[in-house]
């Protein structure tokens, strides 16, 4: 017996849009419970709280190398992660190992992403903890 194919079956699932710099900074501020002024302080005034606010409001998207470095220091994240966000590649897919996870399980990118995200959150948390250790 032939089964009727849904007209939408060949339509690929819409993949999640890449995270913007604003989304990324907002997420990190929330995760680490940091304020704009904390970023200014942690970056040794390399970036001002006002500039961080502008990034969140999409008013400042072309950052200089110094600003990227300062923001990375303020957030306690590697500058390459911020650079990847700016050029439209999520840091997640930049990790070679995770590329492989995607490669091997690409039946539904959205589902894989949803499954991988919490795992990476746990790993990132542990990496941050180890980096903070004296």
């Amino acid at each position, binding site marked *: 017996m032939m089964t009727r194919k849904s007209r939408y079956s060949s339509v690929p699932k819409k993949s999640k849009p890449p995270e913007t710099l604003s989304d990324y900074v907002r997420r990190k501020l929330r995760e680490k419970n940091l304020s704009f002024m904390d970023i200014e302080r942690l970056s040794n005034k390399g970036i001002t709280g006002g500039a961080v606010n502008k990034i969140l409001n999409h008013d400042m998207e072309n950052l200089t190398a110094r600003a990227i470095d300062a923001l990375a220091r303020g957030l306690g994240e590697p500058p390459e992660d911020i650079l990847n966000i700016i050029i439209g590649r999520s840091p997640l897919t930049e990790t070679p*190992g*995770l590329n492989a996870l995607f490669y*091997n399980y690409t039946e539904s990118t959205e589902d894989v992403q949803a499954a991988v995200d919490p795992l990476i959150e746990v790993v990132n948390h542990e990496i941050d903890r180890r980096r903070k250790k004296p």
Partner: protein
Amino acid sequence: MRLTAGERSHDGMREPLHVAAVRSRLSRMGYRLHQHAFTSDDFEGICEAEEIILVRYPHPWTGAYFRHRGFDVIYIRSTLSGLLKPFVELHELAHFWLHYPEGPPPAQRAQLFDARRMLIDKVEHQASVIASLMLIPTIHIETYSTYELLELYGDRHIVEFRLCIYRTIGN
């Protein structure tokens, strides 16, 4: 291969190089490969000594080894039980020692445990050989009958795989 040439031992003519390398590394940590039956506790101790981030999570994948932000990460499905649990743990540990993610294209760098590839893929086979050698020591193979090994370990596939290795390399 993560282990350096200096760590490779050549005694035992039939012992493959990757087995000798792991045996030498374990020996430095105070473990004797063919005499000690490694458990999950040993695995956790080795992960700590090697500064590997160990994540146990209820994911669909059984196990994986990858590098993330400059750290080595072993992920193990938290719902694993029985002999498969230490087997997958030791299998991923073997990937950490033997298959450092450099050189191959990115798509092949993460080592995911896949039982279907266990005996097909060279890299997977090497990791499975190490895992079974660590799990069922030679001393048990030489002491117990096949029936007793099955009683003791309770997983026919892993015991048969281990016996096959014993017949091939004599350890």
